[in-house]
C-alpha cells in the first residue's frame, strides 16, 4: 500500500481557518479570563464562613483605588477575605499558571507531549533544592522563603539538564527515555528530600510542605516574593512563543527558518524551570497540572504558542484555584493536600494518554 492510498477516503477537514484558527482562539482568551475571575470569587466565598458572592465582589471593588462603597459586612469577613482566602487564591492561581505554562514550554522544547515539571523530575529536583536551602546555614526569613527559590531553581535546572543528557544520543532526544529518566530522577530526589525531613529534626519541619503540595501556608508575603520570579520566567518563555511554533517542525527545519535552536531551547528551559521551581517553593510538589492543562488547551486553542501559553496560564490558574477549593472544603475542617488531588486526577489522564496511539508526538 502506497502512502497515496492512505490519503484516499479521508475527508478533507472542512475548516474555515485563516492561519491558526484565529477566531475561536480569540474568543477563548477573554472567556478564560472571565472564568478565572468567577472561580476566584467563588473560592473567596466558600469555607467555614460562607460569604455571599455579591458581597465578596463589593468588598473587592471597595479596595480598588478611587472606589468607595459602603459594604454591609461584618469586620471578621474583611479579615477572612483579604488576609486568609485572597492570598490563598492568589497563590493557587500563581502556581497553577506557572505549572501549566512551564509544562507547555517543556512540551514545546522537547516536542514531547508528556513533558511536565513533575514527570521530568524538575519538581522533585526543585523540592530537594528547597529542602537543602532550609537545612543550610543560609538565612531563611520568617515566612520561610529567602534563599529557597534560588536553591529550588538550581535543583530544577540540574534535574532538567540531567534528564536531557540521559535521554539524548547525539542531537536526538529519545522521548520515552526522557520521561523514564525523569520519573527515576524524581524518585531519587524525593527519597533524598524525605531523608532530610526524617533526620533533620525540628528545623526540617518546613520540608514537609515541599513533599505534599498545598496552599495552607499561603500568605501575602510569600505570594509577593514568588511573583517576580514567575514573571521573569513567563517573559523569557513568551519572547520565544513564535520560535516554539517553528520548533514543532524538526530542529533542522526550524534552523532553516532562521530560529537559533540551541539558544531558544536553553532560554525557554531556563524560563520554564524558573517558573516550576518558584511554584514548588510556594506550594510544594503538585504534579500533573503541567500535563493536563496544556493538553486541554491544545484541543481547544490549536497549537499557536502565542495563544496556548496565555490560555494555559489562565486555565491553569483557574484549575488549581478550583482544586484548592475542593481540597479545603471536601472533608472540612481537615484539608487534603492539593498535590494528592491533582495526582488522583492527573494520574489516570497520563495513563489515558499513554494508551492512545501517537503517544510520543504532539
Amino acid at each position, binding site marked *: 500500500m502506497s502512502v497515496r492510498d492512505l490519503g484516499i477516503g479521508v475527508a478533507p*477537514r472542512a475548516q474555515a481557518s485563516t492561519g491558526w484558527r484565529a477566531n475561536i482562539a480569540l474568543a477563548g482568551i477573554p472567556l478564560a479570563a472571565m472564568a478565572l475571575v468567577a472561580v476566584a470569587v467563588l473560592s473567596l466565598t466558600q469555607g467555614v464562613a460562607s460569604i455571599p458572592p455579591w458581597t465578596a465582589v463589593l468588598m473587592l471593588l471597595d479596595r480598588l483605588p478611587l472606589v468607595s462603597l459602603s459594604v454591609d459586612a461584618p469586620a471578621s469577613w474583611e479579615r477572612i477575605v483579604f488576609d486568609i482566602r485572597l492570598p490563598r487564591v492568589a497563590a493557587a492561581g500563581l502556581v497553577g499558571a506557572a505549572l501549566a505554562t512551564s509544562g507547555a514550554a517543556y512540551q514545546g522544547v522537547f516536542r514531547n507531549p508528556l513533558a511536565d515539571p513533575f514527570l521530568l523530575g524538575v519538581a522533585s529536583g526543585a523540592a530537594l533544592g528547597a529542602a537543602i536551602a532550609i537545612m543550610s546555614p543560609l538565612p531563611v526569613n520568617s515566612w520561610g522563603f529567602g534563599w529557597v527559590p534560588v536553591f529550588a531553581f538550581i535543583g530544577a535546572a540540574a534535574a532538567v539538564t540531567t534528564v536531557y543528557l540521559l535521554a539524548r544520543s547525539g542531537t536526538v532526544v529519545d522521548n520515552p527515555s526522557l520521561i523514564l529518566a525523569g520519573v527515576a530522577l524524581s524518585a531519587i530526589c524525593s527519597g533524598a528530600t524525605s531523608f532530610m525531613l526524617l533526620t533533620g529534626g525540628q528545623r526540617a519541619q518546613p520540608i514537609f510542605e515541599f513533599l505534599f503540595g498545598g496552599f495552607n501556608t499561603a500568605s501575602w508575603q510569600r505570594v509577593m516574593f514568588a511573583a517576580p520570579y514567575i514573571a521573569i520566567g513567563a517573559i523569557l518563555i513568551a519572547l520565544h512563543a513564535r520560535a516554539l511554533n517553528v520548533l514543532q517542525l524538526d530542529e533542522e527545519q526550524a534552523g532553516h527558518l532562521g530560529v537559533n535552536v540551541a539558544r531558544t531551547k536553553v532560554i525557554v528551559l531556563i524560563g520554564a524551570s524558573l517558573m516550576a521551581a518558584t511554584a514548588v517553593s510556594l506550594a510544594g510538589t503538585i504534579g500533573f497540572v503541567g500535563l493536563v492543562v496544556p493538553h486541554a488547551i491544545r484541543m481547544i486553542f490549536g497549537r499557536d504558542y502565542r495563544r496556548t501559553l496565555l490560555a494555559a496560564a489562565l486555565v491553569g490558574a483557574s484549575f488549581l484555584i478550583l482544586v484548592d477549593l475542593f481540597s479545603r472544603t471536601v472533608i472540612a475542617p481537615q484539608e487534603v493536600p492539593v498535590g494528592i488531588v491533582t495526582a488522583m486526577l492527573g494520574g489516570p489522564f497520563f495513563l489515558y494518554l499513554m494508551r492512545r496511539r501517537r503517544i510520543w508526538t504532539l
Partner: protein
Amino acid sequence: MAAPVLDRSPLLEARDIRVRIGERALVDGVSLTLMPGEVLGLVGPNGAGKSTLLRAITGDRKAEGEVAVSGRPLRAIPRRDLFRMMAVVQQLPEAPPAITVRELTLLGRFPHLGLLGRESAHDQQIADASIVRAGCEAFADRPLATLSGGERRRAFIARALAQEPRLLLLDEPTANLDAEAQAEVLGLLRRLATEGVGVLVVLHDLSYAAAYCDRLMLLHHGRLMAEGPASRVITAEHISAVYGPHVRVLAHPEGGAPLVVPAL
C-alpha cells in the same frame, strides 16, 4: 517575484568544499556555481556525497571551503537574513500530523517577522500565493497526515516559498514518489526557475534529472566526475564508470535526452 532579469551574478557559489570523517573524505574538493533561473541537479550513486555536499552548503554539516550567497560569505550573513534569501527542503522534513498545509506554509514567514511579530494580511497573502505556486490549493486546509507523498513534498515546498527565497535547495524531493508525483514536483521546480529562482536539487533518478535540470553535476566518491548539460554528463562512459556494468544509457525517443535503464 521574479528576480531582476539583468542580474546575472551567481546566487550561490561554493568553492572547494571538503567534508571529512577522520581520514575519509565524504566530499573532496567540490565547487559549484548557481545562477538565477537555473535548475542544477546533483546526481550520483548512494554514498557519492550529494546530500553531504548540500548539508555542507547550508551549514548543517561542518565543512572546509567557502560558500557565498549573492556574493556575501554565508558565515557573515545573519541567520534571519540568510533564510529570507535561501530556503531549504530537507530529505524527510517533519511536522505535527494535524498541522494543515496553510498553517505549515505560514510558518515559512518566520524569518520575515520580528520577535513578537504577528502575521499581517501581507504575510497571509504571501502564504496563499506560495500555496498556489506550489500547487497545493486543492488540499491547503487538510492536515499533513491525510496527504499523499507527493502532496506532502509540495506542502513543504510551499513552506519554503513563503520565505520568498531567491535560492531553493532541496534534498531528494522525489524520493519514494510514484512517476506522476515525481513529474509534478520536478515540473514545479522548473516553473519556479522560470520565475527567476535558482534551484539546487539532489536527485537519485538520472533519467528524471536529465529531463528536468538545466545542468547536472555527477558526483562519485565525493568528487566531481562530470558537469554540464545532461547530454554531456549522462554518457555511457561516465555511467559505467560510476554505476558499473549493469546500466545502459539510451536516447529518449522524444527529444533525445539521456535515459538510464537496466542492462538486459
